């Protein structure tokens, strides 16, 4: 490749994160469990079983230490190979995307009907609350808590993910078109993901803070 020609190795933090997970027994086991669950087609429809996939995802993010999960999910990237790997972390083909984009308000209603999802969403909105007056953009002032609350949503009705392989913009799979009178409320909800200074700073800080970490 071009990189080896000039005697350089491409730094791909997301690949390093995968390695760190693979050589750890618990991380490797639970990652394999969710990947297997998320890529397995069901006999009936040939599609994946989203319910099982989500359940395995929640198990992974609940039980594996954040040292591993956050590296996999928030690894900083400078090229698309890295960013695509990062986007693929949650197996979005099964856990995230669907044929149509439902309305975000509808999704919130489904989430609020579920005890775990409701509390996770509330936690996210609390820990990632943006602030114009706070120095770091977060009302609670804690990046780690915001990222943890973000991962708490993975595998729920409002699973967020990177929207493409070139930016670090995140959003749940829903839209605010056709929101009628609730357009403003909907935009505010979606803005919590794709236009949130606290979350954006937390994601960016994650990359630079752990720059000095030794790579295995």
């Amino acid at each position, binding site marked *: 490749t071009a990189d080896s020609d000039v005697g350089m190795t491409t730094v791909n933090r997301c690949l390093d994160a995968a390695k760190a997970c693979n*050589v750890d027994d618990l991380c490797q086991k639970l990652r394999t469990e969710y990947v297997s669950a998320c890529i397995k087609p069901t006999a009936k429809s040939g599609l994946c079983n989203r319910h099982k996939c989500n359940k395995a995802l929640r198990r992974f993010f609940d039980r594996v230490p954040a040292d591993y999960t956050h590296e996999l999910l928030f690894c900083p990237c400078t090229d698309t190979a890295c960013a695509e790997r990062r986007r693929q972390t949650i197996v979005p083909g099964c856990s995230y995307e669907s044929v149509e984009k439902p309305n975000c308000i509808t999704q919130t209603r489904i989430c609020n009907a579920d005890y775990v999802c409701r509390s996770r969403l509330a936690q996210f909105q609390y820990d990632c609350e943006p602030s114009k007056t706070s120095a770091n953009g977060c009302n609670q002032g804690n990046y780690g808590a915001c990222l943890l609350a973000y991962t708490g949503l993975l595998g729920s009705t409002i699973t967020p993910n990177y929207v493409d392989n070139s930016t670090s913009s995140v959003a749940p799979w829903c839209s605010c078109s056709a929101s009628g009178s609730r357009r403003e409320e909907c935009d505010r909800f979606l803005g919590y993901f794709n236009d949130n200074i606290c979350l954006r700073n937390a994601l960016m800080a994650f990359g630079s803070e752990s720059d000095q970490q030794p790579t295995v």
Partner: protein
Amino acid sequence: KRARRPKPCSLRELELTVSELGLGYESDETVMLRYCSGKCAAHRHNYDITMEHMMRIGFRKKGRKDKVSNKPCCRPTAFEKDFSFLDNKSRYHTIQNVSAKNCGCA
């Protein structure tokens, strides 16, 4: 110079990329390959002694040309469960029985 004592059959570890496993998958993801290596001298049975003899002269005398292994062999007695990875084309795969979990002389 001290004679090197042969290591007994045991589980060893090596970090490799998935591509290096030789299974036809292209992925730069690193995995821990666990494999079995070492001597099984202590596990020689009468069977092995007899087979050694049979290979040398026993079979020929009886008009046979059979080949048999005449020493116990260090092999996995159990494999690690499934292992998943993302390949270089952004597709996930799950593969089985790649790494040894336990080793034994058989």
